[in-house]
C-alpha cells in the first residue's frame, strides 16, 4: 500500500509541521511524536485520530507531524529536527526506509525509542508494526472473491507494478489460495501491471473483457485498481455479473461500491496502526517485553505474532457497500 497512500486523501494542509514547545517529561508522561509520510491526506488524518486517542487514553503527550509533501529528504529533515528536541519516542511511517536508516540510527544512539510502520525491512528500528501478513491478506481477498463467484469461473489479477513487493505478496497470496482451495476457478492471462493508475487499470480491464468475455472476477492491488476495473465493468453493464475485490479505500472505491461495480475492498485502519505504534513505544519506555501472541489492546492486534523486530497483527478491515461509510478516508 506504500505507494497508493501517496495518492489518497484530502487537501494538503501546509501546516507548521513541528509541534512547538518542549515538554519536560514528568514521571511516566512521555513526549512521543509520530512522523508520517505526508500530512493533510485522508489516510494520515485518520492515523492522527488514532494518535490522539492514544494521547487521551494514556495521558501521554503524543502528537503527529510529517512533511507537506511525500518526500524522503523532507521526512529525514523533520526527524533530524525532532532529535534535537529529544522526545522519548519517535514513531515513523517511512516514505523510504533506506533513506531514513542514518537518521533513525542517530535517534536510537541518543536514546530515543524508535518504532516504525510499513517498513518490515527497516534495520534501525526497535519494533516495526505491520497491520497484517501480506500473504494472508491476499488470501482473504481471494476468499471473498471466490465466495462472490460461487467458487467457479475465470478471474484476472492486477498489481500496481511487478516490482512492488507488497502488491505482489497480496496478488500471490490470492492466487495461491485459489490454486489450493478453489479449483473451479481459473486465472486468465498473467498479473497485469497498472502503474497505480486508474486509467491504466481501466484499459487493462477493458482488454480482459475483450479477450475473455466470460470473465467473472477481478482482484486488484493498487488502491486505484478497483476504481479502474469498476469503471470498465459499469460501462459494460456487467455490475451484477462480475465480482470485483481489491485493496482500496472507501474514498476511492466508494461510488463503485454503491453501484455494485465493485463488490468489496480490503485495507487496514491507519488510526489503529497509529495507536499501536505509540502503544509499543510506550511499552518499550516502560521496560515491558513484547512477546509472541500478546494482546496490544486494539482490535486486530489482540494476538500479534512477533518475528525478529516485526510485530504483525490481523487487522484486516473488510468493507463492502453496507459499511464503507464508517471509514471516511
Amino acid at each position, binding site marked *: 500500500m506504500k505507494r497508493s497512500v501517496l495518492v489518497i486523501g484530502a487537501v*494538503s494542509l501546509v501546516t507548521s509541521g513541528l509541534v512547538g514547545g518542549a515538554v519536560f517529561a514528568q514521571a511516566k508522561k512521555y513526549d512521543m511524536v509520530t512522523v508520517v509520510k505526508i500530512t493533510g*491526506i485522508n489516510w494520515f488524518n485518520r492515523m492522527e485520530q488514532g494518535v490522539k486517542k492514544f494521547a487521551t487514553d494514556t495521558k501521554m503527550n503524543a502528537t503527529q507531524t510529517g512533511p507537506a509533501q511525500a518526500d524522503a529528504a523532507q521526512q529525514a529533515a523533520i526527524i533530524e529536527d525532532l532529535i534535537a528536541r529529544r522526545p522519548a519516542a519517535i514513531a515513523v511511517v517511512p516514505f523510504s526506509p533506506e533513506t531514513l536508516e542514518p537518521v533513525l540510527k542517530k535517534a536510537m544512539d541518543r536514546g530515543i525509542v524508535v518504532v516504525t510502520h510499513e517498513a518490515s525491512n527497516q534495520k534501525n528500528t526497535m519494533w516495526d508494526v505491520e497491520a497484517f501478513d501480506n500473504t494472508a491478506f491476499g488470501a482473504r481477498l481471494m476468499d471473498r472473491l471466490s465466495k462472490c463467484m460461487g467458487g467457479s469461473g475465470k478471474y484476472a489479477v492486477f498489481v500496481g507494478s511487478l516490482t512492488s513487493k507488497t502488491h505482489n505478496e497480496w496478488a500471490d497470496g490470492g492466487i495461491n489460495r485459489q490454486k489450493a482451495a478453489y479449483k473451479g476457478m481459473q486465472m486468465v492471462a498473467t498479473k497485469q501491471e497498472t502503474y497505480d493508475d486508474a486509467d491504466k487499470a481501466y484499459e487493462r480491464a477493458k482488454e480482459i473483457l475483450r479477450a475473455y468475455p466470460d470473465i467473472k472476477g477481478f482482484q486488484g492491488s493498487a488502491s486505484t485498481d478497483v476504481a479502474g476495473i469498476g469503471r470498465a465493468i459499469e460501462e459494460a453493464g456487467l455490475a451484477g455479473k462480475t465480482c470485483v475485490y481489491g485493496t482500496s479505500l472507501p474514498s476511492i472505491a466508494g461510488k463503485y461500491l454503491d453501484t455494485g461495480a465493485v463488490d468489496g475492498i480490503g485495507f487496514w485502519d491507519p488510526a489503529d496502526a497509529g495507536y499501536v505504534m505509540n502503544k509499543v513505544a510506550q511499552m518499550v519506555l516502560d521496560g515491558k517485553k513484547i512477546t509472541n501472541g500478546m494482546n496490544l489492546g486494539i482490535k486486530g492486534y489482540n494476538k500479534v505474532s512477533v518475528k525478529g523486530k516485526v510485530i504483525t497483527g490481523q487487522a484486516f478491515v473488510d468493507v463492502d457497500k453496507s459499511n464503507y461509510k464508517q471509514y471516511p478516508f
Partner: protein
Amino acid sequence: MSGLLGEPAAARAPSSTWRSLTRRPELVTLLLIVALSLTIGLINDRFFSVQNGVDLLRSSIRTGIFALGVLTVLAAGGIDVSFTAIGVFALYVTTKLTMSVWPDAPFALMALASLAIGLGLGLVNGLIVYRFRVPSLIVTIGTQYVYRGALLAFVGTAYITDLPRAMDAFGRATLLQTTTADGIRVSLPAAFLVLVAVALLTWYVLRRTLLGRAVYAVGGSLPIAERLGFNVGRVLLFVFGYAGLLAGLGGLVHGAMNRQANPFDLVGSELDIIAAVVLGGARVTGGTGSVPGTLLGVVLVVIINNSLILMGVPSTWQKVVIGAIILVASGIFARRSATA
C-alpha cells in the same frame, strides 16, 4: 529535406510505390496499422470485433487531443514534453475550483477555464523558448517539473473523485451504444466529438492559413524563414500556446472520462504521445507532419498498447513487445527519410 512549406505536392511523378510512400508518410503508418491488425487478428480473431474497434477509438481520444498539440510544436521544429503536466494542472485546478465555487457550473465554462490555463502555461513555454533562445526540450523539461511541482505543492495532492455534475455527465455521455452477443455493453463516448473538432481545427490552421505555412517554414529552416519575413516569435508563441491549449482541453476530457481528478496523473505518458506523432510521419527535426498522419500514428500506438492481452503477451514481456514494434516502425520511417 522536403520543401520549406511542408511536403511538396504528392503528384510530382510518383514513379514507384516506394516513391509514393516517401511522399506520403501517412501511407506508411496506414500500412503498419494494417499489418499489425492482421497479425493480431490472426493470433486472436476477437481483434476484429465492434467491441474492440469502439474501445480503440475511445482510447484514442485523449492521446489524439494531446498528439495534435505536439504535432504543431514538432512541425515548427520544437518539442514539448511539458504538455502532460499542463494537462493535469488544468484538470486539477479547474475541478478543484469548480467544486469549491460552483459545483453546478456548465461544462462549457469548465472547458473554457481549462483552455485558458493550458493556453497560459503553453505561452510561458513559448516565451522562454523565444526570449532566451533555449532549446525547447530543455525548457519544457524544466517547465514540466515546475508545473507539476507547483500543482502538488500549492494546489493539492488529494484525489478528487466527487466530480462537478456537468463534468461527470460529460464523462458518461455516449454517442453510440450497442450490446455484444456476450452481453457486454459497448459505447462510444461523446468526448470523441472533441477529438474530431480538434482535428478539424488543427488541420485547418496548419493547411489553410498563413500561420500554418509559417509554422512549417520555421520548422523547415529558421534562418530562411526569418529572411522570408516570417515572424518567428509569433510562430513560437502560437505553437506552444496551441499545444498548451489542447493539453488543457485534453486534461479535462481525460479527467471527465476517468471520473476523477488525480494530481499525480498523466505526467509520464508524454513519450507514448510523442511516439504517436513521430510514427504518424512528423520528424523531430521539424518542418513536416500532418493531421491525418498524426491521427493514424495515434491509432497505431493505441493498438500496440491495447492488444497485448489479446495477443497473450505476458506482462513482463509487454514493454519489450511495445518497444520492438516502435523500433520496427521507426526503422521503416528512417529508411524513408534517408531516401526521400
